[in-house]
Each structure stands twice: as C-alpha cells, then as structure tokens.
C-alpha cells in the first residue's frame, strides 16, 4: 500500500509537469447543444488573421506589386497552379474553394505551432490549432465531398452516376465505398498529423525544455504545411476526377 501511494505521488508529479491534455474540451452550451469553445475561439482568430491580412494587402493593388501584395499574388498564383494541374482548364470557379481550404488549414496548423495559445488559460481544455479537433477536419472533408458531388452533377448531370459502374459493374461496391473512404481518409490524415505533432512537441518540452524540441518543432511546421497542401491538392483532385468524363 505504501509503495503504491508513493508511486502514485510520483505519477501525480509527472502528470502535473507534463500537463498533457488530450481530448479535453472547453464546452459551451448553445440551445441544448454542446460546442467546443476552444476550437471556435482559435478558428475565429485564424479567420480574423486571414481576412485582415488579405484586406490590408489587396486594398489598393499596384501594377508593380510590393511587400504584402507581392506575397498574396504569389499565394494566389500557387493556388491557381494547384487547381489548374488537378482540375484542368475549367479550374476558375473552384479557386476560392481550394484556396480557402489551403489557407485555412495552413494558417490553422501554423497557428497551433507558432501562436502562444497556452498563455491564455481556459477552465478546461486548452487552446490549440482548430485542425487539432476532429470536428473541424470532418467538416472540411464533408464539404469536400459535397463539392465534388456538386462539381460532377453540374458538369455531367445524372450521367455523373455512370462512373459507379465503370469500368465494369463489378466494381460498383468499391466505387460506392470510395465515397465514404475519401472524406474519412482526408479528415483522419489531417487530424492525426496535427494532433500527433502537437503531442510530440508537448511531451518533448515536458521532458527536455531546452533545445531538443526545436528540430521536432521545425519538423512540425514542415508537416503542417505539407498537410495543408495535401488536403487542398486531394480536394482539387477529387473535384477534377468527378468533372472529367469517361468518354
């Protein structure tokens, strides 16, 4: 009994030091429904950052771009390039969707790594990247599904459903299954990467507070960017795939 309580005390100490909180949420009640307050707060900050910087940079476009405008033009070129390579020549109407997907995920991921959210204490849970929550990633993935269904139906009408029995009707179950695996893989890939990245950083910081976590943090920044690019590219690829017909 003595030994057990002793080990419990050490555990408690470790638990307090590490301060790892996973799956803790700051609940708000809205009309009988619960929402995760920390996710909403951070997503508002991310949206404010995006809208604010875009407004400032694009407010008065110059023929010869400088500073912020140059950067935002570069970003727009990049997004257009991604959409064009994945969707094809009719990429124009999808640039806002792909671009917002990329920018929102990218800024969310980097905000989790760069902004000192931990300074603000919440009653429970803690502020982190919005993409750290499964609700966000599933929301984005479901929107992607809706988007590619919409793209296919508007482009090819009911003939869109012909893709389910191509190349042979035998593949019908697999083709239907794909519609479920696509959002599942999209959302879980993003969620898992960001959560794992933040967990690794937090655990390493709790174990060795100096220097050692820095390479992992840099790796986390890199992974965050890659994840945003992967999500946007895959969304564009799904949209392009449903728009191109098998003639």
């Amino acid at each position, binding site marked *: 009994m003595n030994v057990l309580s002793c080990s419990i005390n050490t555990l408690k100490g470790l638990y307090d030091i590490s301060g790892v909180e996973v799956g803790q949420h700051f609940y708000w009640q809205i009309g009988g429904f619960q929402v995760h307050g920390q996710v909403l707060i951070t997503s508002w900050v991310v*949206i404010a950052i995006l809208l604010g910087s875009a407004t400032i940079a694009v407010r008065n476009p110059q023929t010869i771009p400088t500073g912020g405008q140059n950067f935002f033009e570069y970003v727009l070129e990049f997004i257009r390039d991604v959409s064009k390579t994945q969707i094809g020549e009719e990429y124009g109407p999808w640039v806002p969707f792909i671009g917002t997907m990329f920018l929102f995920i990218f800024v969310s991921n980097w905000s989790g790594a760069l902004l000192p959210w931990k300074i603000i204490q919440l009653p429970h849970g803690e502020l982190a990247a919005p993409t750290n929550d499964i609700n966000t990633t*599933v929301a*984005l993935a479901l*929107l992607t599904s809706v988007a590619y269904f919409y793209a296919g139906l508007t482009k090819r009408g009911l003939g869109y459903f012909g893709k389910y029995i191509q190349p042979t009707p035998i593949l019908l179950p697999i083709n239907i299954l794909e519609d479920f695996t696509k959002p599942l893989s999209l959302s879980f890939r993003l969620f898992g990467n960001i959560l794992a990245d933040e967990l690794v950083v937090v*655990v390493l910081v709790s174990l060795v507070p100096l220097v050692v976590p820095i390479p992992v943090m840099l790796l986390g920044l890199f992974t965050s960017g890659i994840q945003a690019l992967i999500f946007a590219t895959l969304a564009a690829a799904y949209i392009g795939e449903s728009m191109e017909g098998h003639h």
Partner: protein
Amino acid sequence: MANMIMSSSKALITSSSSTIPSSPRFKLSLTQIPFPKLPLPRSPKSLETLSIPSTLKSISVILASSLAIAPPSLAEEIEKASLFDFNLTLPTMMAEFLFLMFALDKIYFSPLGKFMDERDSAIKEKLSSVKDTSTEVKQLEDQAAAIMKAARAEISAALNKMKKETQQEVEQKIAEGRKKVEAELLEALASLENQKEETMKSLDSQIAALSDEIVKKVLPASN
C-alpha cells in the same frame, strides 16, 4: 484486452483507494485517451503483491493511480474527455468555412485575380504593340538611309559640277594665256625677221661699197 484492463483497474480501484466514487462509470475505449502512459520504475514488492502479467499490471496501476489522485470533479472531466466527440462544432465549422470562403473570394481571390489577369493582358498588349513599332522603326531607318543617300548623291553631283566648272575656267585661262604667248612669240619672230631683213639690206649696200673700194685698191694701175 480492453476488458481485462478495465476489470483489473476496477479491482485495483476498489481495493486500494477510498477517495474515488464507489461506482466509477469509467469505460476504457478508443474514444478515451485521458492521460499519458508513462513507464514507471516499480519496486519488487508491488510486483509480488499483484499477480497479473507485468505489462497489463503497469498499465492498470497507472490508470488506477491517475484515477485515484484525481478529485471527483476531475474524474468526471476525464470521463467526459474524448478525442472523437462530435457535436454542434462540426456544422459550426462548416458554416465558418463557407463564410470564410465567400469573404476571401470577395476581398482576395476575385479582386486580385481580376487585377492580375488585367495586368497580364495589358502587358501582352504592350508587348505586341512593341513588336509593331519595330517594323515602324525599320521603316524609319530605311527612310533615313534613303535621305542620306539622296543627300550624298546631291553633294557629289554639286561637287562634280563645281569641279567641272573650275576645270573649264582653268582650261580657258590656260588657253588664253597660251594664245597670248603665241601671239607674242609670233610678233617677236616677225620683228626678228624684219630686223634680219633690214640688216641684210644694209649689209648688201655696204657690201657693194666695200667691193668697189676693194676693186679700186686692187686695180689702180689698170686705170
């Protein structure tokens, strides 16, 4: 596996501690990862007291101890804590994303995209117009060359004319001089001839007188 862990931890909780609620509705499932699992050094005595496999035992001890140290309120929180907790946050995030999409389209994608496209077309237009002026420049250059050629021809013609005129003048003057010299020469020759004739005439008369005298001197006796 999960059941085993659950049962073992429950047994431990009920036996070892009295601070936790009597019937914890604690379910260990995939959706609950309440705390980090850290390996701990254990004393041999605790190993002896518990008769379950060591890995299971250490996990269960950690679970139990974490539950045990938690005050009732924290225990409830941990019970609620879950990674895969879907609620109204999901549709809210969808709405937020759609709002962000429309807002960004209004203030970023559409205006800047339009601006960039317009600039691209303007640059292309300017480039093509520059190509047009290159032919213009060629025309102008040709014109300039033609003008230069004409001017050169004019100048050379004027030069030739002047040369001819001066040459004619010079030749005229030379001819005049020659004529003058010839006339003078003729005059001089004529005067010379005259003088010669005169001297010859005078000599003739003198010769006659001299021959008379010579005859007189040579032939005095015959007289």
